[in-house]
């Protein structure tokens, strides 16, 4: 259940940014989560509910954008066919495929409530 420590890291990053903006209330945390990671979306959502307590993200919403796995061959170019059982070998030329996207675990942006909105 490493999603809990990842949720804590996400909140720490968001809190640091919020403090820079002198905000005390994070409304949204937007992340990009690749398909080819070890992080399970539902487990991360659950872990976030637990980890946000007593933080600046106490009432924040976690918005997760799933990033599909895209592959590319240095010779033959982008792979457009569905990948059969995660075979990362180019079906045309036999070279190893590169993972272009799908490994993301990235905090994109946060949305902060202004002091006026908190009143």
């Amino acid at each position: 259940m490493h999603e809990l420590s990842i949720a804590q890291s996400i909140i720490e990053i968001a809190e640091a940014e919020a403090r820079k903006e002198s905000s005390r209330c994070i409304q949204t945390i937007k992340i990009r989560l690749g398909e080819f990671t070890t992080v399970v979306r539902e487990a991360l959502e659950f872990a976030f509910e637990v980890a946000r307590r007593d933080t600046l993200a106490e009432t924040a919403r976690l918005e997760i954008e799933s990033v599909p796995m895209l592959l590319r061959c240095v010779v033959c170019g982008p792979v457009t066919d569905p990948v059969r059982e995660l075979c990362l070998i180019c079906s045309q030329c036999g070279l190893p495929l590169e993972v272009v996207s799908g490994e993301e675990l990235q905090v994109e942006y946060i949305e902060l409530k202004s002091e006026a909105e908190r009143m």
Partner: protein
Amino acid sequence: MDRVSVQTNALKANQEIATENRRLFAGEGTVVINLMSAPGAGKTTLLEATIRELRGRYRLAVIEGDLQTALDSRRIQALGTRCHQITTGTVCHLDARMVARALAEFPVHGLDLIVIENVGNLICPASYDLGESLRVVICSAAEGVEKPKKYPVMFHKADVVLLNKTDLATASGVDLRDLETNVREVNPKATVFAVSCKTGAGLDVWVAWLRDVIESCGTVASART
């Protein structure tokens, strides 16, 4: 409402400490292996077999990660090799900070090789860089042929994959060629060795490869005879 762009990897804090660890190891000319597998695939047994071949020739140390107990540490220390135990409690993986803390109380000055034996788990440890120079993943034949496909991130990120317990392949109904194909499909760039720590088959090839890595890393020890 204000939107603030962040664009930061969620594991940035771990990555920063891993970079520090890596800098420390590089400064010492030490090869550092992050050894990972499912529980029971044979990490500690492989480590014992490897230590028997390398001790006396190189300066070695081991950092053991387990949820509980110092059983594995005692096995390593029984070979006369320095070993530090990290007990993670409930945490299912080692992270760079745990290794940095271990290094603070377990001096690694002048070593040729450090092996960090991670918590037995094919999922979470894959996400945490410890500052290692090599990721070595063990898959035992007794686990069946499909593990590399079921845990692709772990196998994809490996530099070396050791297929262990080859002596059990027939009894487990496993064709080692199928297992190797599955490894190569998720990681065409991996260096793959087939070994049996029980019979010793294939260990010479792995140890010779590892010796080349240690030698090419530089400042090999005065302990060498």
